[in-house]
């Protein structure tokens, strides 16, 4: 049975890059892989979604109804990927980017943003552009894993390797390809940059391993 992965985030978060690396690693390992981006008419902005399937045999349709693992890296990405989640899905989100509503908005009839205690701690004037709206996580998911990859990347590593941390988390959660193969795929893609600046290689490897360390269990449901 194919392992089906959905990665979604804002443009620029690098979800397409890590989806590509994952698919390349699987292909290099002798597996069948299909990677397809979901693209709209927008030149920038909008939610970027990547679909990856990895299997031992030829993969049928490039899209699929439900995923084994869904990774959502923004509030809008959570909304866009909800349809791919069922009780077998491991749902991964970045809680430093996505604010989960703590009270179900439909139940009490007030806006989720008001129900979120963080919004009530707000002392400064609310700036619409900065206001962090909350979203309802897909409750049907078999497992929900919050990561703070963005914060950790900023504090411990570098914001630019945020996506490689996410890749590490996906790798650990699915066990779908080996770490060595992913490193080889990173090398194939970034080898030129690594050669110029060997520290970049180290930074990416550390990000990969740090990401793997964020997820406890190996294997999807």
């Amino acid at each position, binding site marked *: 049975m194919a392992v089906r992965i959905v990665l979604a985030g804002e443009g620029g978060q690098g979800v397409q890059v890590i989806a590509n690396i994952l698919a390349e690693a699987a292909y290099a390992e002798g597996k069948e892989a299909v990677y397809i981006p979901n693209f709209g008419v927008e030149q920038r902005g909008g939610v970027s979604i990547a679909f990856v399937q990895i299997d031992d045999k030829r993969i*049928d*349709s490039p899209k699929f109804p439900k995923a084994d693992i869904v990774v959502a890296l923004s509030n809008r990405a959570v909304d866009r990927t909800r349809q791919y989640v069922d009780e077998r899905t491991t749902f991964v989100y970045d809680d430093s980017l996505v604010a989960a509503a703590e009270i179900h908005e439909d139940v009490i009839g007030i806006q989720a943003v008001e129900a979120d205690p963080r919004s009530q701690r707000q002392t400064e004037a609310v700036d619409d552009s900065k206001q962090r709206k909350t979203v309802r996580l897909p409750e049907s998911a078999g497992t929900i894993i919050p990561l703070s990859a963005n914060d950790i990347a900023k504090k411990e590593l570098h914001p630019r390797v945020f996506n490689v941390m996410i890749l590490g988390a996906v790798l650990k959660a699915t066990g779908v390809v080996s770490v060595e193969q992913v490193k080889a795929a990173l090398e194939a893609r970034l080898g030129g940059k690594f050669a110029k600046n060997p520290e970049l290689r180290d930074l990416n490897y550390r990000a990969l391993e740090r990401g793997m360390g964020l997820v406890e269990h190996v294997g999807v449901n």
Partner: protein
Amino acid sequence: MKEKPVKGERRVFMTGNEVCAWAALAADADIMFGYPITPQTDIMQYWTRLAPKYGKKFLQTEDEISAGFTTLGAVIAGKRAFSATTGPGNVLFQEPMSMAEMMRIPVVLIIPMRGGPSTATVIYSQQEVTMTAFGGNGEGFRVVYSTAGHQDLYDYTIKAFNTAWKYRFPTFVLSDGYQGKMRESLTIYDPAERGIEMVKAEPMLGLPGIPGVDRPTRHLRNTYNTEEELYEVVMQIARDFEKAAPEIVEWQDFDTDSEMDVLILAHGVVSRAAQGALPLLKNEGIKAGHFRPITLRPMPEEQMRAAAARANRVVVVESAYGQFLKLVKETLYGMDKPIDAILRPGVGITAEEIVAEIKERR
């Protein structure tokens, strides 16, 4: 001797649009004309990156009408020329493609279908079947290959050049936005090493010698003065097309040898979902088979009818609102066979969705 772009056999992992560019190179195409439109533009981009290394050319024209006519001009001059377009671009291509039908100009056009009508989406559909097979003010004297993956894209893009130049009908490779943008594995190869000889592209005009003295005159026409004159010409094209059809048709069938509860008819990438649905349906106790026409024009009529004869009913599945269904109805005309359809215009279809629909309508 020019260096060959593809030597031996090589396993690769790339997007479908890149596959098309490699296939055109392997087929020794000389030049591509084109105008950008998503999701076709990558074919042009890959071609422009690769082609100069092998002495090939590219021209971006001012629009698709021009891209079509310049392609035909190059073919008339003896070049193995091709283009690629989709959606509204395919609409504009219909005038040159009609001329190609009338003047028997071989040409290859690759179409990664996007959503319609009009601008619609840049993503995916199977909504260009009618236009590709029967567009323009003509009779659909065209060959249309519908591909279901990257190996198909490579194989049939190469084959399209030979079909076009051998039979002298415009030949289309139908892909779709999914296939164009997705990456999967395939084997690329040098056609010569597999015994595939490319039909020579030769000039149709400006031949050496004095016309009428050293050689017969050649007059390429798409304009006629009388009804009778036109009738003779069109009927000759029709006879040629019908004669070539049995040699051109291609298909695949899956589990269609014995009696079936249901025969799934699907083409292109949707065929992959149909193939994936068969084992799932078997688990549900439903005996299902799948027939996939690879050529939508000409249609493998005899073969589709034979498969349908062994099924209690047929279900047509497509990412359009009945374009393939119409072709199926025409093909199965006169058979006492219930025809059901799962129609999802502009939307991808999965194996699970086919299974759910078939179970529900049982």
